[in-house]
């Protein structure tokens, strides 16, 4: 059984690349049983959305990076 730490890896990868069939199945299985990881998955998606809205939400570009 995949643990939460590994599940967050797949949730993150999913924002950047297609998961393999096997990865998809094990992530889905884990998420179906783990509320904390479902929240984490929502948070990663929200981070992605926040990134898209970042330019509009700021009057100036970010400093320091």
């Amino acid at each position, binding site marked *: 059984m995949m*643990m*939460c*730490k*590994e599940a*967050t*890896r797949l949730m*993150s*990868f999913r*924002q*950047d*690349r297609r998961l393999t069939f096997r990865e998809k199945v094990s992530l889905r299985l884990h998420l179906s049983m783990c509320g*904390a*990881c479902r*929240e*984490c998955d*929502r*948070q*990663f998606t*929200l*981070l*992605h*959305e*926040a*990134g*898209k*809205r*970042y*330019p*509009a*939400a*700021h009057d*100036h*570009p*970010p400093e*320091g*990076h």
Partner: protein
Amino acid sequence: MAAIEKEASFAGRSGYETWVFGILKYKILDLMRLQRKQGRFTPLEEEGEDDAIDRQFQANGRWREEARPASWGEPDRAFETEHFWRVFDACMLALPDGAARVFSLRELMGLSTADICREVGIRESNCWVILHRARLRLRACLEQGWLGEETP
């Protein structure tokens, strides 16, 4: 300054911002290429081995009780509050430099990891690992700074 001088040629603010972001993107890429050439680009070694991750998980791979992700409510409402963006900025600044740059290129500027890695010359699998750590750090930081203050 160059950006301000050019402002007149842009009709709307959003066009202007997109244009500034475009410049920023190339500046970040240039900096990362330079650092890599000089052997100073080592985002994977910036933090003690998996420090940010270890703080959130038990040895068996489950969430630590105090780090379990909580609900952030409706995303659309969050984006409308200035407080969210202040905390978001603070959390970005708290990221290690390399991680912040890769995250900015990927999520703020929308480059694919394939593009980032080709431009900077690191392996794509490294990018994925850097982003995983950056996201875990950001989510923990946002949850502390944002939800922590908002609940009475």
